[in-house]
C-alpha cells in the first residue's frame, strides 16, 4: 500500500460504509455489522498512515485543481494525524455503543442515523488531512450538513428548533466570517496552502492581523467560542451517541483543530507573537473558559452540564492557540486527544444512565452508583481527566497549556486554567459523590436541588426500582465506556509519544519554549 492509497482508503472507507449501510438498511444486524466493520477499516488505514508518518514518508494527495489557487488536496501533518486518530479511533467504539443505545431506545430512522454518522466521520477525516484552507472549508461545511439530520433525529418540534439553531449558527458563522476570512487571506497572500511558518508574514498589514484572526476564530463556529456557543447545548437533543462522538469529539474538535491549524500554518506563531495580535482572542477564550464553567455549575440536566463543560474545555484549546508559544500549541494539540477520551466517556455514561434508568438530571442520580458501579467508576475516571489530575491524560495537556501561558509572560491565563480546574471539580464531582455516597431514599439530605429532584422523581414515577440491585445498561453500552475510561489512564503513560509527535509543528519557531 502506498501512502497515497492509504489516505484515499481512509477517506473512502467511511463513504463506502455509508453506502453499504444505506443498501443494507432492511437487515438490522447486517447493517450494524457493516457500520462497525467500516469503523475498524477506517481506523486501520489511519493507523497505517500514522505508521508512514513515523517513517517520515511524504504523505500528500492532490485530487483536483478546482480553480487557480483552489486545490482539493490532502497532506498529513502531526496535528491532523492526532485529530484523525482520535476521530477514527473512537468511531468503532461509538458504533458499538450506538447499537446498544439505539435499540435500547427503539429509535426510528436508524439507517439514516448510521449513514449520516459515517458521512460525518468521512468529513472529519477530510478536515484532518486538509492541505489547504479550501479543502478544510469544504469538509467543514460537509460536516455541518451531514450532522444536521443527526441533531433533528427525533423529528419533534423541539428537535427541529434545535436543528435550526445548530445549522443557523454554524452555517452563518462559517459563511459570513470563515469564508470571508479565507477569501481575504487569498486576496492578501495569493495562496491558501498550509505552510509551516504561515503564509501571511510580510503580506498582511499588522494592524489588521487581529481582525483577521478574530474573523477566523468567530467564523469557526464549531469551536463554540462565546458568543457563538449556543448551538452546542441545543445539539444535545440528539441521541446520546451523537452527542458523544460528534459534539464531544468530531464536530467540536474539528473547530478547535481548525483554529490551531490556522494559527500554526496560516498565521505562523512568530508572526502572531510579533504584534501580540492574538491577545484579544486570548481574552475572549479566557472569558469563555470561566463563564462556561460557571454556567455548567448551574445546569441540572447532565447532558447540558457536559455541554457547557465542553464549551469551557474547547476554549482551553483556543486559548492555548491564542497564547501561541510552543508549549501552549503542543498543549492544545494534546488536549484535543485528552479531552476527547474523557468527554466521550462522560457522554457514554450519561447515555448509559439514561438507557438503564431513564434519568437525565443530576439531582435524580442519588445512589445510582451502587446500581451502576462500572458506569460511575468510568465517570469518575473521566472526571479526573477533565479536571486535570494525575494519573489521567488531562493532567499533561493542562500542564503544558499552563507552561505556555507562563512562557508568554501571561501568568493571568495560567491562573484562568487553574481556576477553571477548580470549577470543573465543582460541576463534575457532585455527580459522582451523589451517586456513590448518597442514599437513594434520603431525599434532600445533602441535596441542593431537593425541589427539582422531587419534581423529577414524581415525573418519572420510578421510586419503586431505585432500591433494586445491580442494574447496568446493556453490554454494548458498558463495554465502550469502560474502554474509553481505561484510555484516559493509558494516555497518561503515552503522553510522551503524543508530545514527540506534536513537537515538530513548533520546531521552527524562534521563540523559546
Amino acid at each position, binding site marked *: 500500500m502506498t501512502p497515497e492509497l492509504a489516505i484515499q482508503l481512509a477517506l473512502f472507507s467511511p463513504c463506502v460504509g455509508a453506502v453499504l449501510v444505506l443498501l443494507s438498511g432492511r437487515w438490522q444486524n447486517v447493517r450494524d455489522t457493516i457500520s462497525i466493520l467500516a469503523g475498524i477499516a477506517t481506523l486501520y488505514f489511519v493507523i497505517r498512515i500514522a505508521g508512514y508518518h513515523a517513517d517520515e514518508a511524504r504523505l500528500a494527495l492532490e485530487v483536483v485543481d*478546482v480553480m487557480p489557487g483552489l486545490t482539493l488536496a490532502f497532506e498529513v501533518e502531526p496535528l491532523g494525524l492526532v485529530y484523525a486518530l482520535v476521530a477514527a479511533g473512537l468511531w468503532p467504539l461509538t458504533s458499538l455503543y450506538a447499537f446498544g443505545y439505539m435499540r435500547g431506545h427503539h429509535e426510528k430512522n436508524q439507517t439514516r442515523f448510521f449513514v449520516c454518522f459515517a458521512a460525518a466521520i468521512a468529513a472529519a477525516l477530510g478536515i484532518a488531512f486538509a492541505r489547504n484552507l479550501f479543502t478544510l472549508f469544504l469538509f467543514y*461545511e*460537509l460536516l455541518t450538513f451531514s450532522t444536521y439530520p443527526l441533531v433533528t433525529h427525533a423529528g419533534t418540534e423541539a428537535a*427541529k428548533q434545535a436543528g435550526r439553531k445548530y445549522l443557523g449558527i454554524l*452555517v452563518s458563522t462559517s*459563511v*459570513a466570517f470563515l*469564508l470571508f476570512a479565507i477569501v481575504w487571506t487569498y486576496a492578501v497572500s495569493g495562496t491558501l496552502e498550509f505552510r509551516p511558518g504561515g503564509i501571511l508574514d510580510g503580506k498582511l498589514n499588522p494592524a489588521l492581523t487581529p481582525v483577521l484572526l478574530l474573523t477566523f476564530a468567530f467564523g469557526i463556529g464549531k469551536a463554540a467560542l462565546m458568543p457563538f456557543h449556543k448551538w452546542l447545548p441545543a445539539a444535545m437533543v440528539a441521541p446520546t451517541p451523537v452527542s458523544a462522538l460528534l459534539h464531544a469529539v468530531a464536530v467540536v474538535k474539528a473547530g478547535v483543530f481548525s483554529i490551531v491549524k490556522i494559527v500554526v500554518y496560516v498565521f505562523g506563531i512568530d508572526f502572531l507573537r510579533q504584534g501580540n495580535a492574538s491577545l484579544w482572542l486570548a481574552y475572549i477564550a479566557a472569558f469563555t473558559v470561566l463563564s462556561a464553567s460557571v454556567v455548567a455549575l448551574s445546569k441540572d440536566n447532565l447532558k447540558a452540564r457536559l455541554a457547557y463543560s465542553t464549551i469551557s474545555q474547547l476554549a482551553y484549546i483556543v486559548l492555548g492557540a491564542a497564547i501561541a508559544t510552543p508549549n501552549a500549541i503542543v498543549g492544545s494539540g494534546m488536549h484535543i486527544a485528552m479531552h476527547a477520551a474523557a468527554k466521550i466517556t462522560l457522554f457514554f455514561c450519561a447515555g448509559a444512565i439514561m438507557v438503564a434508568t431513564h434519568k437525565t438530571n443530576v439531582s435524580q442520580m442519588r445512589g445510582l452508583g451502587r446500581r451502576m458501579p462500572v458506569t460511575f467508576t468510568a465517570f469518575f475516571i473521566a472526571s479526573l481527566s477533565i479536571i486535570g489530575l494525575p494519573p489521567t491524560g488531562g493532567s499533561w495537556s493542562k500542564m503544558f497549556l499552563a507552561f505556555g501561558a507562563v512562557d508568554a509572560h501571561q501568568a493571568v491565563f495560567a491562573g484562568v486554567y487553574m481556576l477553571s480546574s477548580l470549577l470543573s471539580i465543582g460541576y463534575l464531582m457532585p455527580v459522582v459523590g451523589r451517586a456513590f455516597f448518597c442514599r437513594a431514599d434520603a431525599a434532600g439530605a445533602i441535596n441542593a436541588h431537593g425541589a427539582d429532584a422531587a419534581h423529577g422523581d414524581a415525573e418519572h414515577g420510578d421510586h419503586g426500582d431505585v432500591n433494586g440491585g445491580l442494574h447496568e445498561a446493556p453490554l454494548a453500552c458498558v463495554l465502550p465506556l469502560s474502554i474509553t475510561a481505561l484510555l484516559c489512564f493509558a494516555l497518561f503513560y503515552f503522553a510522551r509519544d503524543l508530545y514527540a509527535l506534536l513537537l515538530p509543528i513548533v520546531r521552527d519557531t524562534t521563540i523559546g519554549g
Partner: protein
Amino acid sequence: MFGLLSTWSDWATSLSTLSEHFPVLVVVVPMLSAPLCFLSRNGRAARGISFFALLSCLLMVIHLLGRVLDEGVVSYRLGGWPPPLGIEYRYDQINAFVALIVAFVATVVVPFGQNKKAFRVPAGRTNVIYAVYLLCTSGLLGMCVTGDLFNVYVFLEISSLSAYTLVAIGAERRAMMSAFSYLTMGTIGGLFFLIGIGMLYQMTGTLNIVDLSMRLYDVSSVRTLSVAFATLFVGVSIKLAVFPLHQWLPNAYTYAPPKVSAFLAATATKVAFYVMLRIIFTIFGRERSFEQMNLDRILLPLSIAAMFMGSIAAIYQTNIKRLLAFSSIAQIGYMTLGISLDSLTGLVGGIVHLFNHALMKGGLFLAVACILFRLGSVKIDDMRGIGRRMPWTMGAVVVLGLGLVGVPGTVGFVSKWYLVLGALERELYVVAFLTLVSSLLAVVYVWRLVEVAWFSDPKPGIRMAEVREAPLTMVVPVWALAAATIYFGIFTEHSAGVARLAAAQLFGGTP
C-alpha cells in the same frame, strides 16, 4: 462498392460545406422547425421534431464553441454581405458559451415528462406549445449570436412574444394576467432598447456591434451618449429583471407551466444578461461605462438590494415556484454585482454565475414539475413529509439547494468565490461581507424546503402514501442537472475557465 464510397465522400464534403453554415443554422433550424411542429397536429410528433431540432442545434453550438476556442472569432456573413453593411453572425468566447447554455437547457427540457393538466391548451393541440417553444429558443439563440444591434432587437421580440405565450398557457387563469403584465413590461423594455439603438445609429450611422464600438470612440457628444446608454440599459434591465424592474418576474414564473418556468429561468434572463454585458463592455467599453457614466454607483446598490430583497421575499413565500422566482431575482443580483464590481475577477464571477444559476434554477424548477406531477400541488405546506415518498426528486432539490446557498463543492461556491474575491480586490469589504450574508438568507429558504420535505409528518388531508417517485424520464434530467451542479463545482475548467477567457476578452475592450 465504389458507388457507396463515393456517396460517402459526397456526404462528407457536403457535411463540411454545411458546417460552413452552422453559425446561421443554429438559429434557422429551430425557427423552421416551428412551423413543422405547428403542422404536425400531434403533440408526440411535435415533441420528437423539437427534440431533434434542438439536439442538432446543441451539437452545432458545441462544434462552434470548439472552433471558437481553437481559432478565435467565427464570423458569418448573412447572404454574403460584408459587415457593416450586411448582418454578421459572430461567435466569440462569450456568446458561444451563452448559446451553449441556451441550447443545452432547451434540449434537456423537451423530453422531460409533463402533466397534461399543466397546460391550458385543448387536448391534441399540444404541438402548438412546441412550435412556440422552438420560436422562443430560436429568438434567444439569435440574440446571442448576432452581431447586429437591430437584429438583437428583432430576436429579442421574437423570444419575448413567444415567452409571453408560453407563460399564458399555464393551467391557472392567473397565468393570463401575469402574461399580460409580462407583455406590458417587456414591450416597454423592448421600446426603450429600440430608442437606444436609434440614438446610437444617429451618432454613428452603423448597427454592427463591432463597428459601432469603434466609431463610438470618436463621438464626443456626451449627452446623447448618456441618454442612449441609459435607455439601452433600462431596456435590458427590464428584460433581465434587475431589482426595481423585476415586478413581472415572480408572477410569470409562478403561473407558467413548470417546464416553461424551468426553461425561462435558465435561459431568458441569462441571454438578457449577456446583452447587458455586450452593451456595457463591448459597445460602450469599460472605461466609458464606469468612468464616464458611473455605472457602478447605480448598479452596485441595486444588485445588493436585489440580493437582499429577493432572498427575504423568498423566505416568506408559501408557493415553491414563487419562492424560486424570488430567489431568481436575488441570483440576478449576484450576476449584476459581478458587472458592477468593475474588476476582472468580479466579472468572471458574474459570467460563471450565469452558467451556474442556469443549472441550479433549471434543475429546481424541473424538480418542482416532478412534485406537481405526483402531488398535484406546489404549496410548500402540502409537501410535508414528501422526502420519503419521492426521495430522488427531493434529494436533487437538496443538492441544488445547497448549490444556491453556495456550499463548497457545488457551483454556487465557485461564483461566490469570484464575486467576493473581486470585491476584496477592489477593497470593498462591506460589499464582500454583504454578499456572504445574503447567501445566508438562501440557507433559510432552502432549509425550509428541506425541513418540510424530510423532517415533517404529512399534512392532514394530503394522501401522502399515494404519492410515488416521479417517472424516470423526469427524474433523470433533474439529476443530470443536480450532478452537473456538483461536477462543475469541482471541475471548473469548462465553466469558470471559459468564463475567465470571456471576461478577459470583454474587459480588454473590443472583441
